[in-house]
């Protein structure tokens, strides 16, 4: 690219960013999970950090998850990237979200997911519906160690992604509580046949800061019609809104 073109492009981007900063919102969030899942007798404790940048109809979120105690031998167990864009069709506003999720579970197995979701927000309800694809793959080091030459990755068939949330108070109220059923969490996308239920509450303690708590329950084999508890965890965190 020509030097002058590059200079003008940088000026244009800078002006755009400065202009957008006036209308942009940045949300920083951190939370901690504590609980247990049915693959290990050991308790589970994770912490995560998320940042969301919202400008007009566009939003971008990213985050990371650290497993402090739990079955994974890795500490960094999740990376998350989400892009959203507001759309209105025939006076029906909704957001389209694209998700990328990477789970480096162990030194042998990693997993990634991509998904596309429609997100509809009403005063008391949030609906999310979409589809995603998952790939498990064996890391390069493990391929060498275990002499794996051919099939180091496995795609699963596309999966329905969903969330239905009801909140007692309308969106934006100083405190709120509600219930969700979903197969999505920030760093986990379950199969559509493995829903999770959570109850949650939030309190906007000051203008920029909201604290929240959630209780999640995971039931294995619901669609086997022979359900067993798979696990539970409690989450507490805060959101800091920078405008």
């Amino acid at each position: 690219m020509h030097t002058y073109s590059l200079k003008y492009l940088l000026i244009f981007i800078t002006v755009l960013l400065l202009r957008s900063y006036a209308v942009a919102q940045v949300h920083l969030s951190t939370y901690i999970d504590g609980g247990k899942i049915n693959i290990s007798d050991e308790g589970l404790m994770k912490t995560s950090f998320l940042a969301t940048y919202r400008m007009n109809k566009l939003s971008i979120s990213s985050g990371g998850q650290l497993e402090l105690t739990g079955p994974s031998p890795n500490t960094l167990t999740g990376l998350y990237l989400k892009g959203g864009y507001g759309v209105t069709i025939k006076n029906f506003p909704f957001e389209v979200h694209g998700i990328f999720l990477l789970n480096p579970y162990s030194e042998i197995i990693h997993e990634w997911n991509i998904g596309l979701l429609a997100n509809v927000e009403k005063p008391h309800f949030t609906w999310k519906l979409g589809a995603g694809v998952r790939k498990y793959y064996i890391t390069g080091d493990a391929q060498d160690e275990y002499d794996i030459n051919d099939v180091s990755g496995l795609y699963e068939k596309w999966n329905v992604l969903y969330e239905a949330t009801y909140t007692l108070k309308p969106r934006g109220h100083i405190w709120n509580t509600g219930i969700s059923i979903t197969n999505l969490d920030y760093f986990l996308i379950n199969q559509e046949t493995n829903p999770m239920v959570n109850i949650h509450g939030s309190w906007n303690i000051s203008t920029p800061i909201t604290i929240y708590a959630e209780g999640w329950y995971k039931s294995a084999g619901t669609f086997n019609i022979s359900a067993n508890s798979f696990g539970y965890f409690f989450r507490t965190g805060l959101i800091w809104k920078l405008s």
Partner: protein
Amino acid sequence: MEIIMKKAGFVFMIMLSLTACEKFEIRGFVTAYEQVNERFDQSMDWNAEHPYREIVVDEDDYSIFSMGDSHVGSTRNLDIFFNECISAGAAAVVFAGDFTTGHTEDYDLFYSHLPDHEVLPYFAIVGNHDLYFDGWKKFQQLFGTSSYMFTVKTPAATDLFICLDSGSGTLGSAQIQWLKNLLKEERQAYRNCILFTHNNLFRIRRTFSTNPFVEEIRELADVCVRYEIDMVITGHDHQRNVVTFGNTVHVTMDALEDINKDPTYLKLNINQGQLLYQFSSVQ
């Protein structure tokens, strides 16, 4: 409001009909009769009094037959399957779950059709349908355990077979730890290692049948690579499927039940140490 009431009534009638259905119990959507860790403990108690079985064959080549989802009830395909196992000289047979509907009378019917254990050694794993109507108690009375190992010893080598209880959509923490310990201590002593369980690990086709949670699948996929599992054989989905991941072949079997249009069973042939599989139609 009237429409909502009608829809609610329709859903209620469906749930009521499922409750009364002879194949399902609506309570299973919420909770099973027992947790998998309880069943695993009972299996281990039984195993402590009944050492694992070693099948000794005279030749290096042998075959293991397996079937899933016979859902007895009726026994036409089951009888054909047993006859073919015996006539082919199978070293053993594995029932990979859902061989009954969970009713006591279906367990009794299934058991009455079993060949003599000395003629055809058999190994059973519980599936979700076998657990309905409090079926685990009857399963345990007839077969004792759903989490165990057996081996087949040839003049050349010995192969390890591990049967796992996934009837409730999860192996559970105790069984996973047992599996990992078993593989850590024993795997190197054996040539091939094959796992049998009812639930499919991966969703390799669009289906409403349930898999274990993703967090459990990651762990099991890690175990399969780490301990060089050669094959994982499952039923549950009623439609055959084969996928390879790493050095492990994951086989889903067709349903053997009589109402299936194309019922098959699996022949696992071990020829000169190589694992070869074949789906055989029930004619």
